[in-house]
């Protein structure tokens, strides 16, 4: 069987699903950030696959996706480090100031 678009898409869905599971279940903020990177990568993979099989425009979007991922990581890690300075841990359970 030849490798086609469907294979790439299913793979990226699996990667995205794993990343989603990580975001929902991990307690360490850094790991959650990493899982978000996973999900972004899965999306990138989809875009590149589409650009190969459907229409070539998707690869330009990947560049923007990279930019956004970089921005997100820099701000996210800065926030985590600031939080760590104050609380001495980065457990997501403690990041709950935004409540009633």
């Amino acid at each position, binding site marked *: 069987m030849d*490798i086609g*678009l*469907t*294979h790439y*898409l*299913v*793979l990226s*869905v*699996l*990667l*995205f*699903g*794993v990343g*989603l*599971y990580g975001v*929902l*279940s*991990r*307690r*360490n903020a*850094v*790991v959650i*950030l*990493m899982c978000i*990177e*996973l999900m972004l*990568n899965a999306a*990138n*993979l989809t875009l*590149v*696959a589409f*650009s*190969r*099989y*459907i*229409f*070539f425009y998707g*690869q*330009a979007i*990947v*560049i*923007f996706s*990279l*930019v*956004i*991922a*970089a*921005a997100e*990581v*820099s*701000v996210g*890690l*800065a*926030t985590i*480090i600031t939080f*760590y*300075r104050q609380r001495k*841990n980065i457990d*997501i*359970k403690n990041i709950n100031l935004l409540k009633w």
Partner: protein
Amino acid sequence: MGINIAFWVFAAMAIAGALMVVTMHSLFRAALGLILCILSIAGLFITLSNEYLGIIQILIYIGAIAVLIIMAIVMTRDVEHSNRSSTYKLPAIVCSLAFIGIAIWTILNTKWVPKFTLSDTSLPAKSIGQMLFGQSGLVLAVEIAALLIMVAVIGAISVAKEK
């Protein structure tokens, strides 16, 4: 045939890396899993005959983002055994599986129609460059993205700065 084998290998590696991220107790190993995953995705890009993006992927994700994450892991203590799961483990699994199921079902039931034939793809770097900076390109979006990353960097500095 070679590309088929490469796909399956990279796919297996990517899944394995992703699973490492969410299962390893050590943060370091999780980070290594992420790098493995990113590397395999870069490889997959190449199997999609998009070498340019594959290289960019390695440069930016591994050279910048992964390093940044590892630095963050180093700066926050309690590295070993800190990658524990929260109370929402079971709902998270159900949710992810449901997502995967729905998404795969959708993919398999969609008729994908190519807008062009495989033969007329030009060099990816050139086409990306044309798309971004060409006559009817996305120059404005590029500028905005540049502004965004600059703001993000300045914001990150100001947030993380020791008061």
